[in-house]
């Protein structure tokens, strides 16, 4: 048995209007690995993520989670294994209070009573949001919403955490807090982002998507040093790897 927990194999997806969003995507993720998927707008990142929990099904190729291909028959299992944190927390926080939102997944999995309370409390504690339990989602700041959205997924104890642009729209403090949080998780993680400095800190491995194919897959630092590759894929070096803006060194 290999130690791969997620395998994406020759994945291809065509939207009903004929757009070929993914042409040929192949890579796999091991236990405990943090992988960044980066690429320009329209490179196919969101389409790829939608395949990971079976919201979209491939036209050809396969997504395998723990060796079982994701199809209609095992969607529930796939959705529990892959915890998806959405791009816009407002889409994800739909219950009247934070507590109920975090409890939504575990309740659907059949938890009740003290077990449920402990599970919710533990998830909120991990994102440092216990004090928000009784609040309504529309009364939270962007940073708080993001942390609570992560808690809603953590409470289902997924094997893989998938995050779509987690630092988008956060102020520097909230962003720093989130990066600290992500570094602390020993989950397998897949993160898409345009915040390449965050990628540099959080993910040891990076997959570069461009026009529906994997252009590069390797250690993050190596990829960010390859200026030609980055330019070709409409990306650029993270700011922390560029010269000082005053002296240029």
């Amino acid at each position, binding site marked *: 048995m290999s130690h791969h927990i997620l395998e994406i194999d020759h994945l291809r997806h065509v939207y009903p209007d004929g757009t070929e969003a993914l042409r040929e995507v192949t890579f796999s993720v091991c236990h405990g690995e943090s992988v960044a998927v980066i690429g320009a707008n329209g490179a196919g990142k969101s389409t790829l993520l*939608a395949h990971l*929990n079976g*919201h979209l099904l491939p036209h050809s190729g396969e997504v395998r989670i723990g060796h079982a291909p994701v199809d209609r028959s095992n*969607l*529930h299992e796939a*959705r*529990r294994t892959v*915890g*998806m944190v*959405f791009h*816009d927390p*407002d*889409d*994800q926080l*739909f*219950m*009247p*209070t934070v507590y*109920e939102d975090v*409890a*939504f*997944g575990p*309740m*659907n*999995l059949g938890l009740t009573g003290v077990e449920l309370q402990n599970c919710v409390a533990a998830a909120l504690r991990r994102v440092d949001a216990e004090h928000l339990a*009784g609040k*309504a*989602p*529309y*009364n939270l700041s962007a940073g708080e919403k993001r942390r609570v959205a992560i808690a*809603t*997924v953590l409470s*289902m104890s997924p094997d893989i955490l998938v995050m779509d642009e987690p630092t988008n729209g956060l102020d520097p403090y909230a962003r720093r807090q989130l990066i600290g949080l992500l570094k602390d998780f020993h989950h397998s993680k897949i993160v898409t982002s345009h915040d390449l400095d965050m990628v540099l800190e959080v993910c040891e491995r990076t997959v570069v998507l461009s026009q529906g194919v994997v252009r590069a897959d390797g250690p993050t630092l190596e990829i960010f040093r390859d200026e030609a590759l980055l330019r070709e894929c409409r990306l650029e070096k993270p700011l922390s790897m560029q010269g000082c803006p005053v002296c240029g060194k």
Partner: protein
Amino acid sequence: MASVHGALLDLKRLDQLAAGDTAVHRLDPRAKVLATLVFIVCVVSFGRYELSALIPFFIFPVCLIAAGRLPAGYLAAKVALVAPFAIAVGICNPLFDRTVLVHLGTLDITGGWLSFASIVVRTALTVAAALTLTALTGFTSICRALVRLGMPKAFAMQLLFLYRYLFVLAEEGGRASRARELRSFGRKGSGLASYASLLGHLLLRTWQRAERMHMAMLARGYTGTFPAAQVGRFGAREVAFVLFWSALFIILRLYNGAELLGTLVTGYLP
């Protein structure tokens, strides 16, 4: 769109009031919902010329506001906001109904004016009761209570989603409208046509959001029913609350409270 934004903040304030911790706040929501329902039924079931018998009913919102330590001025302003609608409904009555029903000294009061006043008072009563209920209980708890009292779950879900996304939708709409205003330089822009397309876009965006939300719900094991909420207790205090108020409303409905009080005070006078 400052007004919409202001209205939203106001709505949030109503919700925050429900976080209070007085004895009436702690009552099971079902008790408060039931009492308010009886109140509304009693108030609206009076005859059209009834005015004096309605006045004692103000005791309910007044007592709850006092016991719940709610800001009375704020709630009164909310009730006043609805007054124009009531006035619009009743304003024609004095014109059509000119039979004189009451003589106050030399002043003749026609049936039209009486029924007009009755409509306004009834609106004030029912709206005040509904607002007090919301400020004491919170919108979501009211929905839950209604489900536990037998309302179909699908309705409750619709209401809860409506309430949750009202804020998001209004903010989106506000932004779009401000963007339109900023580029129309005080002129009409392309008038109604631009509003039509703005609304269309808003609808499409809402649609897409609904799809993403559904995706988020599925991702967390949603199978078509919402998990049951935690149970509250309908104890002796709740029963006493419902019985006391319901009995009072029914008595006030059957006997004119204002008149009774009047005879009590003046009955011994010659």
